């Protein structure tokens, strides 16, 4: 029955045949595509009218100058402070807002339409109004970034709550959990992947909002470098903060992902990986 004898021969062969060709690690693929992209940009970027485009080596040179002069560091600091505050605020307000919208029929009927509408608000047109209320300094930037970040977070959370499985909620109800406890102990963890997606989307939007705020209020920070360089037709220099922003956003996204893995380790384990 347990007829191993006849098969032991082929066993070694089979094992070595499988000999899992270890897949190329992810970071190697990532680095390779980035390298290919930079190379292609370097080659084709030189053909673009320099008033409009630039290429990596020129950007690197411009970046080095900005770093050496300390301008980039100063600008980064100026930009990052309101961003961090506004992003944190968006989470603190957006997530509970989304949870309430998703759970409460009345709140959804009463406020949902405003959230949807506000998300479609052309903020650029309303910056003057914000400036009127908040002045030109730190707080107007915070407001602009906050208004751009809070809605993706709230909306994703809201829609995530709407699809939380009924049976999970019932566990809470069966054990007589209060609405608040159901929210915190069941709905929140169940919605976490949506919230995290919202947070990641908000990183991208927030970074863009940061630049917009710096374009349209007091010129400062990374946005200031962009607009000054653009007006000086110094395209290579203009690309430096753009690249910095994109790197920043990528790092922040990775950070959000890492935090997610820490606070919700079950998520990755349960999901499909081949």
């Amino acid at each position, binding site marked *: 029955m347990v007829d191993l004898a006849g098969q032991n021969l082929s066993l070694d062969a089979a094992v070595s045949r499988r000999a899992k060709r270890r897949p190329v690690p992810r970071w190697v693929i990532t680095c390779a595509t980035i390298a290919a992209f930079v190379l292609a940009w370097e080659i084709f970027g030189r053909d673009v009218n320099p008033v409009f485009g630039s290429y990596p080596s020129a950007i690197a040179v411009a970046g080095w100058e900005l770093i050496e002069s300390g301008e980039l560091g100063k600008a980064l600091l100026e930009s990052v402070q309101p961003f961090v505050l506004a992003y944190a605020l968006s989470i603190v307000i957006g997530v509970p807002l989304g949870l309430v919208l998703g759970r409460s029929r009345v709140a959804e009927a009463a406020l949902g339409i405003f959230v949807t509408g506000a998300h479609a608000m052309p903020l650029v047109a309303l910056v003057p109004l914000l400036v009127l209320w908040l002045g030109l300094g730190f707080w107007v930037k915070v407001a602009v970034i906050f208004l751009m970040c809070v809605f993706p977070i709230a909306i994703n959370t809201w829609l995530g709550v709407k699809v939380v499985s009924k*049976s*999970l909620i*019932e*566990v*809470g*109800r*069966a*054990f*007589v*959990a209060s609405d608040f*406890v159901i929210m915190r*102990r*069941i709905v929140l*963890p*169940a919605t976490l992947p949506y919230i995290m997606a919202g947070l990641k989307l908000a990183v991208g939007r927030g970074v863009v909002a940061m630049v917009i705020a710096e374009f349209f209020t007091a010129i400062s920070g990374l946005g200031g470098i962009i607009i000054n360089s653009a007006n000086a037709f110094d395209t290579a220099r203009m690309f430096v903060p753009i690249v910095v922003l994109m790197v920043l956003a990528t790092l922040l996204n990775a950070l959000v992902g890492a935090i997610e893995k820490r606070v*919700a380790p*079950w*998520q990755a*384990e*349960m999901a499909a990986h081949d």
Partner: protein
Amino acid sequence: MGEVSLVDVSKQFTSRGSNPHTVFALRRVSFTIRDGEVAVLIGPSGCGKTTALRVAMGLEQASHGHVMVDGREVHGCGHDRGMVFQHAELLPWLTALQNVAFGLEMKGMRGAALHDTAMRYLELVGLKDSWNRRPHQLSGGMRQRVGIARALAIDPKVLLMDEPFGALDAQTRESLQVELLDIQARTGKTILFVTHDLDEAVLLADRVVVMRDGELQEIVDVALPRPRGDIGALRSSPEFGAIRYRIWQALHQAPAVVH
């Protein structure tokens, strides 16, 4: 106290969409489980057992009729009733221990007592060593047992158990049956228990409620002494066989009423 009555309960599900149709999961079902009684609900797949339990628990609102606990109409769930779900329904992000602790926390337990109580009930279902695993790391039977531990831990007056031992091997099942009988004897819980196993029904029940097609078909009294004593001997006794056969008959009867 812990008397539970379904009073003239009907439950229909209407599905909207392209092909609307109505399913009658329960039709004018009335029965009372007396305080401290063990009632077993039995019947073919899809006859409405789970629905009856869910209505009794307060998870489902009856389309018609109502539920009384100790003579008072109740809506919604209460700490007086505890439920073991047919599909365990563990919270996927909590470990086995945390899942058991969840119910206790809802009752207000905290700290060391919480941990110890949860651990004790995990041990009762034989999962002490797996306390740290999340549901997706447990086998089907293990999940089921965590669900049982979670409901037992909150020590409710009324236990509603939906095929709790369905996914368990004979040995584990037997030991949990004994545990349950023991707990019931000690605490006088009222238990409503769904099973497909006739032996289990006879072993546990004071009365067996036989359902069919959403209707109450018959109620069979199980006149066996409590405590049950030597289970092996009981099983092979003629009384046991007779009652088992009565239930079998009730199950195989043509429906009482034709609609």
